């Protein structure tokens, strides 16, 4: 009967695991809401920023800023995969890394020199282990991304772009579509795509004859790097929300399968117990019969 005892121990252990996964699921669910609220409260700034950029774009030529200019030839590419610091969130990190590696191969195939700027402990660990060239590694970011954190990354990239040591930058991050769905997304951060900032301009009527202080070009010069900051911040926030959503889903699945496992193990245990009792009875009856016959 030692096997039945082992199963009993197993059931207990799975029950404990289920308790943990259940708790993590609930914690993640609570954190999703907060992360979502953070994305929401960042939205007005981002919308306004694009609006102002649109307005300026009407006054200033498209090539008037180096961050808009496409470098020729494109030699140095940086890929920025945004991963999490913690695990237990399903395929969250692997999706990002797989996409990043595909992008890496694609760029290398075109004869470019590609480096990674990894964000998140998981991504840094993987890329280091696999032996890729890391430009920088950021594992110090919290799960509540701040503007300052985004700025650290964005400023460095912008500076390198302006120096000419960098010709193209991609962000790879999990886009928060809904609580149920997160999608890895590749976003070209630099150079800024024209249509990104002039998109809505077409439908806007020329109602505002703006006055710029000191002038349109210097306003644009000041504004574009900030725009990059907000794009990075947005990606970090989306990723943070997605992480929690992915963790919730993963933990829900784990909780469910723990439940199934307990059910199966309990069934097995009961069957074994019953079989044992049946056997004992059979033995007793057999023994009694044997005595009677004797």
């Amino acid at each position, binding site marked *: 009967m030692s096997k039945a005892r082992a199963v009993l121990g197993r059931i207990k252990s799975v029950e404990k695991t289920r308790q943990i996964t259940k708790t993590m699921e609930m914690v993640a669910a609570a954190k999703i809401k907060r992360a979502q609220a953070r994305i929401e409260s960042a939205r007005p700034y981002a919308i306004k920023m694009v609006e*102002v950029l649109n307005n300026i774009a009407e006054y200033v030529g498209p090539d008037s800023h180096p961050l808009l200019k496409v470098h020729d030839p494109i030699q140095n590419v940086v890929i920025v995969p945004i991963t999490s610091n913690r695990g237990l969130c399903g395929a969250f990190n692997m999706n990002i890394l797989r996409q990043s590696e595909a992008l890496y191969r694609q760029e290398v195939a075109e004869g470019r020199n590609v480096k990674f700027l990894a964000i998140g402990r998981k991504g840094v660990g993987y890329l280091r282990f696999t032996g890729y060239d890391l430009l920088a590694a950021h594992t110090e970011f919290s799960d509540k991304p701040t503007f300052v954190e985004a700025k650290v990354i964005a400023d460095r990239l912008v500076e390198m772009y302006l120096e000419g040591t960098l010709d193209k930058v991609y962000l790879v991050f999990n886009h928060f579509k809904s609580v149920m769905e997160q999608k890895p997304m590749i976003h070209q951060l630099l150079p800024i795509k024209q249509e990104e900032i002039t998109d809505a301009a077409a439908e806007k009527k020329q109602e505002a*004859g703006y006055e710029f202080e000191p002038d349109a070009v210097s306003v644009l010069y000041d504004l574009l790097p900030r725009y990059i*900051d907000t794009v990075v911040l947005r990606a970090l926030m989306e990723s943070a929300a997605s992480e929690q959503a992915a963790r919730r889903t993963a933990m829900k699945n784990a909780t469910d399968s723990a439940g199934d496992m307990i059910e199966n193990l309990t069934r097995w245990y009961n069957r074994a117990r019953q079989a044992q009792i049946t056997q004992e009875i059979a033995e007793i009856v057999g023994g009694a019969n044997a005595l009677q016959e004797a």
Partner: protein
Amino acid sequence: MADHKLRCEVVSPERVVYSGEANMVVARGIEGELGIMSHHIPIITPLEIGELRVKHDNEQEHIAVMGGYLEFREDKVTVLADAAELASQIDVARAEKKKEERERQLAEAKAGDEGLVGAEISLRKALLRLKVAGRVK
């Protein structure tokens, strides 16, 4: 013109700091102070690290703006601040500490030191916080 109101909104990358009506908004642009009232010409200007005053009837809201942008259009002022705090939200003790720290750092630093600019900006922010916080008492 006193009855002409305009809308004022101050947003930082992380949140909406202030939103309300105003008769006049006074800000520190990089070219100097500027006051905006209703029917001002549409304008976009970068802002210094400075105080933003929103006058509404007889009240005034003081907001510490750590640089950013001001846009005015269609009777609406939008401030895209790098960071911003209402006077009531300022942590005075922390600002005080920062100020002393930075002052010491600047006094010890030699010209051409790295980080000098950063320390100075930090000091200016601390001073601004103290100034703005001092307005409501």
